[in-house]
């Protein structure tokens, strides 16, 4: 069907996007690789010569490295688990007949519109502050000792904040998928006396497979690089330093561009490992 003519036309049409992204990938990537082999300290006069793999060794042997990889995985994994789980429940709920469905949907998707900096500031100050935060008042109201969220439950707090931001996205995609579910099939199963849990496990969940895949894929890409939520709330203290944040510390706080660049290369490797892992597990759902 596709002629030679349309094939070359297709290539031509794809060219701008591909070339641009290739440039956007290659230029920074090349520069990152270049800097990662250099001793590059902006505050000490910039480029101080080649150092081989020294930056790579130093970055990975730093006591902060493995904890930061773990933190990254915990945050990504935690947020994915929460958003997918609650996203499914919420999508099912929102798909039921009710009054004011449109308004409820608006309320649910609203957090997605809030910029990460603002949501981090609001959560940190107005909810999680141990003295003035609303959660502290709530705990006190029930006679409990207020939780010091950002120091004693720091990772949980960040997972909560980020999940709040991404739950709407997951819910929306899952909701659209549920709406496309053939209701006759479900009704038939109900007639046959299949209990709700079974109907969910054998009909709804398989149908949602693709949507869950999409949610996991897109969110992972964004979650691997979350920054503002940590910068604003804990500044990397209390075990909340992700790999991205560690690179930030090396590049901007320590002003060691070479070391940070080596960290950048590790981050790319980690992202690719996660991506391959994802493809293995969920890729079959994604017949692009």
């Amino acid at each position, binding site marked *: 069907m596709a002629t030679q003519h349309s094939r070359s036309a297709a290539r031509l049409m794809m060219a701008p996007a591909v070339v641009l992204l290739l440039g956007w990938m290659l230029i920074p990537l090349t520069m990152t690789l270049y800097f990662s082999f250099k001793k590059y300290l*902006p505050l000490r006069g910039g480029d101080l010569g080649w150092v081989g793999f020294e930056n790579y060794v130093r970055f990975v042997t730093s006591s902060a490295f493995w904890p930061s990889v773990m933190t990254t995985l915990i945050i990504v994994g935690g947020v994915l688990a929460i958003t997918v789980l609650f996203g499914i429940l919420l999508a099912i709920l929102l798909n039921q007949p009710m009054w004011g469905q449109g308004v409820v949907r608006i309320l649910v998707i609203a957090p997605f519109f809030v910029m990460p900096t603002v949501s981090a500031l609001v959560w940190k100050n107005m909810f999680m502050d*141990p003295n003035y935060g609303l959660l502290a008042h709530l705990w006190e109201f029930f006679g409990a000792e207020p939780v010091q969220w950002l120091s004693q439950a720091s990772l949980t707090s960040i997972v909560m904040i980020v999940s709040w931001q991404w739950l709407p996205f997951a819910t929306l995609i899952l909701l659209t998928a549920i709406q496309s579910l053939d209701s006759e099939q479900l009704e038939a199963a109900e007639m046959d006396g299949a209990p709700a849990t079974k109907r969910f496990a054998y009909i709804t969940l398989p149908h949602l497979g693709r949507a869950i895949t999409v949610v996991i894929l897109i969110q992972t890409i964004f979650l691997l690089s979350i920054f503002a939520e940590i910068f604003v709330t804990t*500044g*990397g203290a209390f*075990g909340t*330093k992700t790999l991205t944040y560690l690179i930030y*510390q090396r590049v901007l706080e320590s*002003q060691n561009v070479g070391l940070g660049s080596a960290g950048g290369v590790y981050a790319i490797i980690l992202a690719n490992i996660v991506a391959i892992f994802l493809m293995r597990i969920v890729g079959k759902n994604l017949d692009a």
Partner: protein
Amino acid sequence: MSFRNSVYAATAMSLVTAGGAFAEIITIATVNNGDMIRMQGLTDDFTAKTGHEVEWVTLEENVLRQRVTTDISTKGGAFDIMTIGMYETPIWGANGWLVPLDDLSAEYDVDDLLPAMRSGLSHEGTLYAAPFYGESSMIMYRTDLMEKAGLEMPKAPTWQFIREAAAAMTDRDNDINGICLRGKAGWGEGGAFITVTGNSFGARWFDEDWNAQFDQPEWAEALNFYVDMMNESGPAGFATNGFNENLSLFQQGKCGMWIDATVAASFVTDPEDSTVADKVGFALAPNSEGVEKRANWLWAWALAIPAGTQKEDAAMQFIEWATSKDYIELVAEKEGWANVPPGARSSLYENPEYQKVPFAQMTLDSIKAADPQNPTVEPVPYVGIQFVAIPEFAGIATEVSQEFSAAYAGQQTVEEALAKAQALTNDAMEAAGYR
């Protein structure tokens, strides 16, 4: 705003008779502290006087620091004036990144700048940034609670007295914490505070060969003292409290004592924002018994011109305006003497009007008690009191203070935190080629 500015500019232009002067628009990066916000509000006065207009880039401290450092080290030229501190100025000046301020006008009276401020903002005798305001640290305490506890604050107390007084003032049922101190991670937050506390216990960051000193008993003593005292008498969650958090706690009457920047004095005595405005006393920052150094730091927020800006003349005019005696008068006239930018000029402290301000004398005494050239009991190879004036320090101290904050929050012991601090400091110093 910009319309009004241009009207002023036009008026000013018509007033300028000497040839060659023409209006520029300068871009200034600054921090979102109260005094700078006030300066922003008074920009019209500058525009009226010189014809130049100002674009403000006001950012939170950490963002500002990251923004201006990137720009200056790449010679980006995004700003004509940068607001920087006593830490950055000598380092950047040494790199030749700043325009030397050695050509200030006679009426600016550069000799009027407080010697401590001037030397802290110079490199090899050349001034690279003009102090907008300067500060040390001191004790602010509630006179009423002190009296209730049956104690009297000496003018120069020791840490041992402070701990005792804090315990006596603490009243958990009424939500009163004997003492509020910084615990928040970050080299300029809790890092600065614990460093001066260390100094006042005889500890130091490095020995003369740049070896980290966190394995020394003085540090263990200082850190344990701090943690024990805060657990006894500090507010819940002090591990995340910085300047702002403590300020609002104090203003809400929840602290008996607070040791922090001298500039806070004008906030805690301002009846509009503070519920305890008329019950605040001041004293010198403490030392540990038998240690000569006190927990006084020295800091200035200063205005500097990045080398290579096209608008050097206009920028220089702005700096002369903003850090002048006239500017202080201008603020005094509009907002009262208590709200003028403190700690930069000697003449301010000689002014009889300003001497009536309750915290003026203690601020000056605190500044004078700070000596950046000799910050610690034992000799050190560095300059700076609550910081070490080397480019690597900000990164190292932020990580060290994160370890400390984790200890404050009870996530690790003081010993663990010190061991980690020792290792990571030596590691980073090695990477930088000091050891």
